[in-house]
């Protein structure tokens, strides 16, 4: 069962747009797939290599702006910018990592946070290039969501398979060794600075590609959206943590759950509060609904705490524990 689960999932994902035809659900699935790519990238640097990034939006936004600028400044199809977005994000990651990997642990995480903010300010201030707060608007290539869906799916599958391949190689062993003990890793002949750089650049490349996809798909970006600390950087961490840090399929599970949770808050518990307000005509509930919808960051925070307490290894990492809770008989056997 476990071995076939990924194939089964892939088949379902390939059939999805044929089975579910409404735009709304297709839109959500495109976001899920985009988050799989970002989550896979975050997982490489933070999950496997242990260098926690709080600034994924720096790479995501760079990718998005690269695609946007390709279209507006160079009149080149923003699709070409898919790879270029990844490379541009690496161009940000490279000097950053070179300098900041001298920092360890929490200090590195803080530096990524700073990078996030610096990039957002650059995108805001450099109006000649980026259009500043106004953002960039391009004309989308497709009207239907289906082509975007399949492009996102291809990217997500490539990201997961690519990361799996890397983790099975020497690089993967080195990444995890660095996470487990940097001094031991050095003593075993691992150039920890170099391999942290490689890991960060893989993450940046994937996240930048996801950013380019976002620009192409949404047609509009501004600094607040694509360099958002809570909607991109924190969300990336959540996708990584909820699914399971340092597991291949963790980001897949995490992306599904986090997009659902995000949507749950954005729509006020799927319209529950709005409905309640309409039903009772209560002003207080209308106000409450507004706050609930704005409080998704708080909701995220609570979710992280709950996950860390109950499932410290995420859903994939603690799968045995979860099946043990369910009365399926498949998990925990009673002692013979």
């Amino acid at each position, binding site marked *: 069962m476990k071995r076939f689960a990924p194939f089964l999932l892939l088949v379902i994902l390939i059939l999805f747009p044929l089975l579910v035809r409404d735009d709304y659900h297709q839109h959500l699935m495109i976001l899920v797939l985009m988050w799989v790519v970002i989550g896979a990238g975050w997982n490489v640097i933070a999950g496997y290599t242990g260098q926690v990034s709080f600034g994924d939006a720096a790479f995501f936004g760079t990718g998005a702006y690269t695609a946007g600028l390709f279209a507006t400044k160079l009149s080149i199809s923003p699709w070409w910018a898919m790879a270029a977005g990844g490379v541009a994000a690496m161009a940000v990651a490279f000097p950053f990592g070179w300098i900041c990997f001298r920092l360890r642990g929490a200090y590195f995480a803080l530096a990524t946070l700073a990078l996030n903010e610096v990039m957002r300010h650059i995108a805001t201030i450099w109006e000649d290039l980026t259009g500043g707060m106004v953002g960039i608007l391009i004309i989308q290539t497709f009207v239907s969501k289906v082509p975007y869906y399949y492009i996102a799916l291809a990217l997500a599958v490539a990201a997961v398979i690519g990361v799996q391949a890397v983790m099975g190689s*020497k690089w993967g062993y080195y990444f995890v060794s660095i996470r487990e*003990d940097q*001094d*031991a*890793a050095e003593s*075993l*002949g691992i150039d920890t600075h170099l391999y942290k750089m490689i890991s960060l650049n893989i993450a940046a490349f994937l996240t930048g590609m996801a950013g380019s996809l976002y620009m192409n798909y949404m047609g509009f970006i501004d600094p607040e959206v694509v360099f958002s600390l809570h909607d991109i950087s924190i969300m990336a961490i959540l996708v990584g943590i909820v699914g399971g840090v340092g597991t291949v399929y963790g980001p897949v599970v995490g992306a599904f759950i986090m997009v659902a949770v995000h949507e749950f808050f954005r729509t006020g518990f799927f319209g529950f509060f709005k409905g309640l307000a309409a039903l009772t005509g209560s002003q207080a509930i209308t106000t409450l609904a507004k706050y609930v919808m704005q409080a998704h960051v708080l909701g995220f925070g609570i979710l992280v705490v709950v996950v860390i307490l109950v499932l410290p290894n995420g859903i994939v990492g603690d799968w045995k524990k979860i099946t043990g809770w369910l009365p399926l008989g498949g998990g925990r056997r009673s002692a013979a």
Partner: protein
Amino acid sequence: MRFFEVKNLVKYFGGLAAVNDVSFEVKEGEIFGLIGPNGSGKTTIFNLISNFHSPTSGSVLFKGRDITGLKTHRICKARIARTFQVVKPLGRMTVLDNVVAAAFSRAKTKHEARDLAMETLEFCGLAHRKDMLAKSLPIGERKRLEITRAMATLPELLLLDETAAGLNPSELVEAIDLIRKIREKGVTIIIVEHIMKVIMTISDRIHAINFGRTIAEGTPGEVANHPAVIEAYLGEAYARG
């Protein structure tokens, strides 16, 4: 050409001279003991050799090459491996993967790395634990994993920092056997050890330090009877009560 040599090594931590003008030479194929009371600077000397700390002054020479200031991972590539007194297992990796990670410093392919790792695990007597997570090994075997990992980098010089501390009597015998086996393989060893019985029986020559300074060097017999060594250890024993 001299095989291995440290010359006038000095290391200051702030105002404290942890290592103060230490020089010694190690001949190819020998087991060279390094002794001294707690805090005398033994681990610091290892850290200077493998460049976890850079020396305040002095130099480290290996096979005619000045390797002072070479990055830690390059020291390993130069075929000097070390173990840590406070063991550093790659906890959430299996024992095998710990050793595979080390073997990659020599192997070109994953297949080669696994073969080298398995071979080294067999050699060091840890093969039966290969699928266990490193963090769940008992302390004796963690120490053994330190040695196994270091050996998988195919060193010519091995630095062992108190690998016998905390072992029970039967593990101690095994550890001594293993160290002898490693030497028979042609690996030169510098060993730091507190257990006098171990270091005195196993070493060809011993270098004794106290407060970061050399106090004696010679055969185990010579060093054990050296007044400065006796004083350093007795002094410590008295101080401890």
